[in-house]
């Protein structure tokens, strides 16, 4: 699972998929996950990073990450 090469993410969370012309807006947590995906991080690695970085319990972290990745797939932003 990796971010498509055609997807650009700016520092303030603006996301552009050049292959389809779609643009998106991500909040800081979302933008951070997109960066990790570009780096090829696995779901498990990202979960650990989130738990290290944020004041969050494991259940919420797992649930929200799962949901976010589903949404990215739905928007065709991931190479699966």
């Amino acid at each position, binding site marked *: 699972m990796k971010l498509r090469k055609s997807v650009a993410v700016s520092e303030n969370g603006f*996301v552009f998929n050049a292959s389809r012309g*779609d*643009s*998106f*807006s*991500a*909040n*800081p*947590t*979302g933008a*951070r*996950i*997109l960066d990790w995906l570009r780096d090829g991080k696995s779901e498990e690695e990202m979960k650990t990073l989130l738990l290290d*970085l*944020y*004041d*969050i319990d494991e259940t*919420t972290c797992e649930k*929200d*990450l799962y*949901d*976010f990745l*589903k*949404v*990215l797939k*739905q*928007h065709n932003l991931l190479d699966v």
Partner: protein
Amino acid sequence: METNQKLKYERPVIKQLNTGVTNKFGPQMGFMPHTHIDGIAVKDLINTYGSPLFVLSERTIRQTYQEAFSAFANRYPNVQFAWSYKTNYMNAVCNIFHQEGAWAEVVSRFEYEKALKNGVPGDKIIFNGPDKTTDDHMVAVQNNSPIHIDHLDELYSLMAVSQKLGKRPKVAIRVNMDTGVQPIWDRFGFNYESGQAWDAILKIIQTDRMDLVGLHCHIGTFMLSTNAYAVATAKMADLALNIKRQFGIDIQYLDLGGGFASRNTLKGTYLNGADVAPSFHEYAEQICSTLIRAGFRSEELPLLILETGRALIDDAGFMLGTVLANKRLSDGRRATIMDFGVNLLFTAFWYEHTISPAQECSQYTEDTVLYGPLCMNIDVVRESIRLPLLNKGDQVVVHRVGAYNMTQWMQFISLRPNIVLIDTDGQPHLIRKAETVEYLTQLESTPAHLSAFDL
């Protein structure tokens, strides 16, 4: 010393940007959390009384009433409000309006009994509605209550009651009419344009068994056109003046009913309800100026009765609730399940209720479908609402729910919750307890042969 301070978490969110038609109001920038009601923290109210919870503000009820009353009383010398029980018949609410000087306006024997038990004198309970039995008529006549006749069957029934009791009922007829607003509300009362109303008036006067003391109309609900009230007032005044001219009878009151819009937003409307709802002054100007110009001698101006309900109480009611869960629908939309649904918030069927988070919230928003907790497909509180990122356990405040929800709510699937009134000193009072299984089942009886089973 090095500290390992973790960042405040906000759930990850990504939103597709669509170029659409420019919105002249611009995008909504952030949400203001609604953390307190009349000085009491929403969090504390929920901790004490549970969630979901209805909260009413006595201060807002009184302020709204006084604003409405003065709008009319400053324009017309003889004004009387009658509190529409069906809009909210919690006894505490009714008594606030009665303390402010409002009579009672009821549409059933149940409401009539409630008004009597609240201590309203019989002659200050206006009995409206199409459903009055002979027994209801007898009680209302004995109590000298003004009875508003809805149809000819009622008129004849009341004549029989009058004969039986040897008393002259105090009556008005309900008149329906074309006020230029569609659809015409012609299911209640007698029609003005077709002559039905005049025929009913003649019948009452010529049979000489009742005292025709008033004329009543109620031209619609959530009326955004104030001009319709001017039309209605002119037609009512025309009837009253004709009665005076032909029979020398003074009509003591004209009851213009209710139907004033609240500041809620109706489904399907483009503009926000708070921006388009006429003020009390706009309604009052149309009604009072028409009445004053109608041709009554100044000493014979009839009492003007108003029965507006919704506009007097909607703003004073809040529903507090809690997020049960978040989920994602098959088309990618966010869905949030609340612990209140259309069972409690009946008005969700026709309003796009304003909903605020009750705690500090993210500046990021998501388009969300807001569901209630019922295991029924109809339980949708908002089909689409832009909300900040809500998490399980977060609390919200639904605004302007004072009218109809606490009377039209359904005991369906779950129990109805507590209702709290915050008094003018900021003290909360439980005015209706949450229902219990015992309370609900006390009226049931199970036949002996169904009392046991073996599974």
